[in-house]
């Protein structure tokens, strides 16, 4: 998985994100079967089972949204990337770091989507808890389901349930591809 382009090193990024007690790590295809398996692995993990109900539910729900966001929205990785060749390549990591759980996702997107993703996350991060709640209700009540079934609520739901800002980086990889790294914290 070693590849360095435009200063971005995927292997270093991955190693850095594994800091903490690793509950789950996945590098490869994001499929419905993989998601089912990952959910089961997290749910049966001792560090998950020992949490109080509210934390368990938040972690599980947010994990579902993070993975299904990947499933619906990843772009194919660069052709020269030495990962197992798959058009829906993504990385998912769940770690416990002290009193926090962190869900990290990483995937490639086309450069053309950078502005959209950046603007969307910056907008969500600028909202107060009350504004997030009202926007959620507004979209739930007024917008129809997108072709991918996402409904435009995934990221918003993550922000709402965690009460934390989304931490993200967009690493230029080559002329076409950008690596999108997202960290979600649940306390």
């Amino acid at each position, binding site marked *: 998985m070693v590849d360095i382009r435009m200063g971005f090193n995927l292997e270093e990024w991955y190693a850095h994100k594994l800091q903490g007690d690793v509950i789950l790590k996945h590098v490869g295809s994001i499929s*419905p079967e993989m*998601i*089912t398996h990952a*959910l*089961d692995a997290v749910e049966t993990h001792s560090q998950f089972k020992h949490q*109080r*109900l*509210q934390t368990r*539910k*938040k972690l*599980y*729900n947010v994990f*579902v*949204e993070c993975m*299904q966001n990947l*499933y*619906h929205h990843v772009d194919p990785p660069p052709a020269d990337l030495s990962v197992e060749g798959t058009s829906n390549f993504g990385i998912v990591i769940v770690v416990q770091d002290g009193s926090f759980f962190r869900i990290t996702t990483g995937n490639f997107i086309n450069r053309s989507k950078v502005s959209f993703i950046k603007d969307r996350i910056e907008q969500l991060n600028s909202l107060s808890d009350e504004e997030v*709640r009202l926007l*959620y*209700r507004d979209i*739930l*009540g007024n917008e*129809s*389901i997108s072709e991918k*079934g*996402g*409904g435009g*609520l*995934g990221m*918003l*739901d993550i922000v709402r*349930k965690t009460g934390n800002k989304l931490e993200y980086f967009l690493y230029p990889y080559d002329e076409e591809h950008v690596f999108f790294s997202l960290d979600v914290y649940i306390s």
Partner: protein
Amino acid sequence: METIIREDTPKTPFVRLDGEKGFVEIKGRSIPENSVDFYKPLIDWIDQYAKSPQENTVINIQLEYFNTSSSKCILDIFKKLELLHKKGHKVQVNWYYEEDDEDMFEAGEDYQSIINLPFKMIEMEE
């Protein structure tokens, strides 16, 4: 009217649609990647049911987890029942949530704010 029962799976809930009793139940986990595929037949059933409904219709929603994709479909079910209610039929929504599950409680509040149906929030002890 035909009763439909769907057993639960790791990503889809148990569903019971009982036309004779005027009873709809959705229980468990609703986290499929494509919720429309799962919910469309249920919404079609409610459309049919609404043509000659019972005097009283009760819908119990008791979800442990549901994803945002399902949230839109659940709203579509409520909207169908809201139409029934507007026509003068009695409809009751029972929204179950586990004690301490603030997110599920708030999800019930979200629907209450959007749809105009008698809505009962029912807390279940752990």
